[in-house]
């Protein structure tokens, strides 16, 4: 065997070894359609058995969710997102995600508040501006692999139910609402991530009340009906997993820059902005304007970039955690 062929064999083995243990290689941007890659997969006999059930479920789902003729056009991903007309969303249907183990492709980012709703404010900084800044940075980080849309790209009012509607219409796989918290005076600054669920904690109820203050178009009965329908669904598990990944990344990354940062954990609370989402959805309180030192950090662009990078890492961790499931289905 020639030296060249011999080395070629060794390199091939090294490449295979790295591929076996490494991540899924992605398509190069130089190839046509730089969008995220869906790998072709062999279909297992078991998944063929599921096909009629899935088809029936899909047909029923489509029938139930037939769009009204006056609906706004589907939000473009990667392009400016126009808030759709006010539309009352029906209760989200239960979706067993394990039947459709697909990788994350589309992400909708929701910068909290906006327009006439500034959110919390301190030292000349407002929650709405910070959330938008962080969302832009996060979009820039994510768009190498994912299709990313934002519920608002400017300082504008977007109703809470419209935000999830935008995500639903964009076919988003993940919805992340970005907020900045305000904590009681004696509490150290911390990060916390929420997914939709009930809470008995009066403090969390107060926070949800603040964040829900813009909620319009829902009656109390609607909310109760929606919540009752939502809690039992598998999507809640995925939302919790997404929240856990984001919370871990936020605390680890930002804790490196602020040793006093508190890990306030993953929690469930009834945020209206999460109710209508048909995909894993979380609300991240990435900082707090009630802390004077934190306000100074938030004036620093590099800190805002760190927040965006932490969110980026959390979303990627969650997305990558889904890949083994996808592999199993093609085995």
């Amino acid at each position, binding site marked *: 065997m020639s030296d060249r062929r011999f080395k070629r064999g060794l390199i091939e*083995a090294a490449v295979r070894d790295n591929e076996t243990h490494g991540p899924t290689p992605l398509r190069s941007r130089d190839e046509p359609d730089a969008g995220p890659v869906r790998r072709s997969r062999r279909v297992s006999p078991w998944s063929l058995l599921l096909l009629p059930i899935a088809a029936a479920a899909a047909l029923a789902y489509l029938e139930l969710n037939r769009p009204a003729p006056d609906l706004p056009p589907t939000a473009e991903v990667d392009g400016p997102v126009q808030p759709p007309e006010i539309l009352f969303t029906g209760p989200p249907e239960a979706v067993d995600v394990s039947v459709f183990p697909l990788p994350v492709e589309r992400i909708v980012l929701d910068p909290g508040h906006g327009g006439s709703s500034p959110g919390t404010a301190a030292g000349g900084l407002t929650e709405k501006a910070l959330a938008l800044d962080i969302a832009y940075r996060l979009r820039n980080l994510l768009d190498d692999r994912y299709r990313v849309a934002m519920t608002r790209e400017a300082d504008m009012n977007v109703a809470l139910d419209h935000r999830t509607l935008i995500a639903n219409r964009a076919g988003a796989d993940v919805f992340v609402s970005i907020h900045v918290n305000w904590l009681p005076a004696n509490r150290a600054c911390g990060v916390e991530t929420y997914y939709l669920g009930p809470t008995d904690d009066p403090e969390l109820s107060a926070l949800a009340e603040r964040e829900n203050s813009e909620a319009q178009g829902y009656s109390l009965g609607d909310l109760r009906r929606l919540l009752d329908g939502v809690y039992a669904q598998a999507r809640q598990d995925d939302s919790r997993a997404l929240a856990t990944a984001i919370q871990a990344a936020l605390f680890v990354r930002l*804790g490196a820059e602020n040793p006093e940062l508190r890990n306030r954990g993953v929690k469930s609370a009834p945020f209206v902005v999460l109710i209508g989402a048909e995909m894993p959805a979380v609300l991240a309180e990435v900082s707090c304007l009630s802390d004077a030192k934190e306000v100074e950090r938030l004036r620093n662009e590099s800190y805002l970039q760190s927040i965006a990078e932490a969110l980026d890492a959390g979303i990627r961790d969650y997305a990558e955690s889904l890949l083994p499931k996808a592999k199993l289905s093609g085995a």
Partner: protein
Amino acid sequence: MTTQTTAPPKPPVLKVGIDLGTSRSSISAANGERHMVRSYVGWPRDMVARKVLKRDVLVGIEALEKRPMLDLRRPLERGLIKEGSARDEQAVREIVRRLLELAVPEGRNPRSAIHAVVGVPAETLRVNRQNLRRILDGQVASTMIVSEPFAVAYGLDALVHTMVVDIGAGTTDLCVLMGRFPTENDQRTLTVAGDAVDLNLHARIEERFPDASVSIHMARAWKEKYSFVGGGGPVIVDAPVNGRPTRIDITEPMRTACESLLEPLRETMLDLIARVEPEYQAQVRNNVILTGGSGLIRGLGAALQSALGELGGGRVRVVKDPVFVGSDGGLTLANDVRDEDWLRLAGPRGDQ
């Protein structure tokens, strides 16, 4: 009307070899740049330190020198990235970032046009491969991770009937190359390495000179300068004793500490050789390559060669410039990997 757009020209691809060591890390780039940094990373302990240092993070010898003000990390200590330690992962990322900054002139080659072969201690490869890959994501377009001994052997073109003994700071890696990509069965990792010698030496000095004030960093520096096995010495150094600079003779502590490497090395070498097919054992015995920073301990090659006498004799060659032998080997390998293979190895952020 359709508009034709011309794709921007692709940036030139730069191949690099990186040796991510427990004590030193190095980079060799196809543009001729070669750099080494100590594998230390430090973050200012508090606001005062940050103000004094005027930096958010320090890497290399600078971090070591300013350690009182820093939360100092040696992320690959004992050859492993500590599981779940975000600080250590961040430290590895900072080391790679610094190496790339040194080797890649500003604006010449974007990170998206760099292909890297990264050599790591065999134990890191076994336990932390996924962590490592995540850490390297986004820093370069494509990465191939291999064990350090394989990178060394590839660079020295010693891929057949060879044993590489790589004595680093945290681990000693032994690997038999038999003309195939080494598997776990072909490799052994010992935690008896340079750091163990440092600790041993430090303990013996403290035992012999209880009034002397000697830090582990001083012991390490003396070892790097005066280490030996067999005949050697005397080793006389200055150390504060009750606050006064005093000359102390550390010849025996040095000899004993360095010779603590011999027995585990001898046992593991003989075990690995015994597993080679009988007809090739003599060739492997006569083709032992000793490398790594601690491979330069005076007399160590001769002592190991003597140990091979139990099996009928052998020959040990010592790599004289171990600092870059791993990264040079990685670069040689990187240059031989075909473009289509680099595409297969592209990470999530690779856009080459």
